[in-house]
């Protein structure tokens, strides 16, 4: 029996972060919570790998960061999508769809 929660596939974390931030600007903790909710009990995100990923995306200028007051009234670092990031998200979604489609094709081949 497979484990109920499996580790997030390599390379998809960036895509998921971009997707979450594309809805509205969010801080690190918020993104972590969102990931948790969306993928509840299916995908396990190691919170420790979230921050290096965020900084990597900021370095690539797909994300932009600003310090804002958060919902609790404390200053937090909010990430939002840049134009380049938006483009990247489209590219990643597209290639994900193609990968998933290709995998599905191979599975279907086996059934026949």
């Amino acid at each position, binding site marked *: 029996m497979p484990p109920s929660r499996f580790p997030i596939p390599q390379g998809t974390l960036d895509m998921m972060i971009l997707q979450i931030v594309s809805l509205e600007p969010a801080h690190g903790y918020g993104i972590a919570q969102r990931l948790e909710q969306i993928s509840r009990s299916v995908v396990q995100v190691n919170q420790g790998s979230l*921050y290096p990923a965020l900084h990597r995306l900021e370095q690539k200028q797909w994300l932009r960061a600003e310090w804002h007051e958060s919902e609790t009234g404390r200053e937090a*670092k909010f990430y939002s999508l840049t134009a380049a990031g938006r483009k990247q998200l489209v590219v990643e979604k597209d290639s994900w769809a193609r990968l998933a489609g290709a995998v599905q094709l191979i599975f279907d081949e086996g059934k026949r």
Partner: protein
Amino acid sequence: MIRQLTNWFRRAELEGGLDRELRYHLDRRTSDLKKSGLTDDDARRQASLELGGVTQIQEEVRDVWLARWLRDFAYDLRFSARSFLRTPSLTITAVVSMMLGIGAATAIYSLVDQVLLHSLPVREPARLVLVDATKGEQVAEGFGSWNLMSYPICRDLDAQKQFFEGVFCRALTDVNLSTGGDYHPTTAEIVSGNYFSLLGVGPALGRVLTRQDDGVANANPVVVISYDFWKTQLGGAADVLGRKLIVNMHPFVVVGVAASTFRGIDVGEVPSVWVPASMSDEVIPGGYTDLRHSSTRWMQVLGGLNEGVTLKQAQVGLQPWFKAMLQKNMNEAGFPKITPEQMQEYLHSSLLLTAAPQGHSGLRRILVQPLCVLFAATMVLLGLACLNVSGLFLARGSARDREIGTRLALGASRGRLGRQFLADSLLIALTGGFLGAALAPLAVRALVAFLPKNTAANALHAGVDTRLLLFAFGVSVTAGVLSGLAPAWQSGRQSFLSSLQQRGGTAFRGVRLRKVIVTAQIALTLTLVVGATLFVRTLDALMTKGPGFVTSSMVSFRLAASRNGYSKTDGSRLIRRIDEAIRNSPLTQVSAVAGFPLLTGGSWNNPITIQADKRITTDHAVNLNAVTPGFFRTMGIRILAGRNFDERDARPSGEMGFRSAIVNESFAKRFLDGRNPLGLRIGGGSGPDVKTDIEIVGVMSDFSYRGLRDESEQAFVPFLEAGSGDATFYVRVRGAPESAFQTLRTIVHNVDPTLPVMDLRTLDEQVSRSLNTEHMLATLSGGVSLLALVLSVVGLYGVMSFVVTRRTREIGIRLALGADRWSAIWMVLREALLMILAGIGMALPVVWFLGKLIVSQLYDVKPFDPTVITMATLVLGTAALSAALVPAHRASGVNPTESLRAE
């Protein structure tokens, strides 16, 4: 990459941000967990468990900020700096080596860049071409010289719009110029009206010259002055526009000041004023300029190619036009009579375009080879410095064996250790490079003083610009990497087990590599020493030979009366009056006048036709001069046969041309094939219609005309009345020559106060000026090879001391077993001798090959001269052996008992 580099400088800010971000995460998670019912402690523990190790996250994020290698490298540098501070003597030696190498290379490069490489500060310098014709075109006249063209050619070419955006012409000349007070000789550039617009040079004030200025001949007496001239001679006056300048006694109106960055298109000759070609009669008196005939060549023609047109296309495309012009010229009145062969050659000449992004420069022609030689020499010196640093590091590497062994044992990778060595050498090279670049301006200033012309001093700058800094940086990094290679490679071969097993300080590894390095150093040094010896011998030979005339107590100066409005007749009368006044001065022993100055690099020259038993035409131009009868006595030049000039040579009034000539020995030897020259008749020119009506009345001894290397054929004629108002005076004075300067000025001033006295100097100074290039080569190559010698001697000493230290035990045992002290000394010396001989053996073929490249810079010495090679080898061998003698002596002093106990 750039972002990562800048991140390095905002580390603190980034770290702070990450801290806050992570703390926020933890706090929020803790408070959320507390809300779900956990106690404060449990919530905190749970939160940090979920997040994972903060330190690890920080490390990972740091890798994002700065690439791993970059961070490691920064730490390596820091580590290097610390370890260097612990060994100051080694550090200083290494840094000074690098500083000397990089500083010397940067200084020479500064000149190479300015004289040879720098493009003009004009629009699109890459599209500039120099228009010239192959040699045959000049055969027709024997007038004009290197790459000169005529004004009409320029006009015609300017109309070839399918190839050129435009074509302009220009000529540099000296004028007598007054801003209201005294007259001073000044450089002027005569330019066609489109000069400024084609170069894209604008005014700093007023306007630049336009096509309208260059319209009707003699109608537009306007000048544009250079920014420097405006600032220094006119005090930067705001009301300069509309002011009157007197150029050769003609009033000109200042209409503008050229942009401050623009200093003409000749490196080393900065014009003070620009004058339209329409005014060339006023600027070059004497009717040498001609704006109508395409056969009168006195200007340089440069064009800006159209975008997309290549030089080749333009050159091929313009040939039909050029050929047509040759044909047309031949049918023009006044075309000289020429032989059929000359006609063939003339009609076969073709148009030649040369890329001229750096403009044109006589200075460049003179300096290309010497500068390249010096640059190569400094590069070799830099190579030596790198080898020295390599050697030092290898030595240090052996001393650090245990440290390195330990690091290997603790798991450091060999690559990582190699990088540490590279960081070491880079740090040294960059520090040395920084110091070297800081010293370079001083060195450049000293270098400029060696350059052949006064003008070079104000045309070249000693400042450090971006290009120079980039060069210094590039060279430093390269030097750093190169000098780190050997130690890095050595460390990679090390086995940590053996190094830990070994007893401290007796490591042997690296010695062989160090010996190779020292051998290479000796080889490089020998090539430099041989080069320097050759240049010193050349200078010495030229100085010993001398110009062939007396120089002590001699003073010379030049007058150009034609620029002060004198006609030829009035001018020569003036010269005669001044000549008389000088001869009557109590200060004068003897004095004479020559039409053209000696030892300035130039001459009056023309092919000659000789009427002997057959007609002989010289295959190249003979150097000519017109002198007064006293010339030979004044200069101490002997008349070997025949007679001196006297009254008999004066021509009756109304007759043109000369009646007699005195030729030199070389002339007789070269052209007359043993015939007696006396009584033969010669004439100027090489055409079939040349009249040979000048009688050779005497033969003079050979002496230098253009420069000290000059051994040319010469023919001198008498300096006549109605000859010219431009002359050079040669005066042998009583007492110190410098003390006569004021008297001579006063004599000229009394005759005509507006006449500037030019180039007033002693002949000794004139000689040393004409030897500037040789001086520069000898002094600088000597300096470079002295530094090289020091570097390689230090290297050899280092290795030999190391060898002696390492073999102390062995030597001790040998001595204990009865070997005598001499054998200990010999043991060490033998090793040194082997390296020295191997180095010399390696160098000799290189010297043989490189020698061929510098032949043209040498005088009276063969590039592979056995005496020179022997001398250089002896100097190097002696220095190197003395360096080895010190450790050898130490070896002989080893105390057998102590050396064994020390273990």
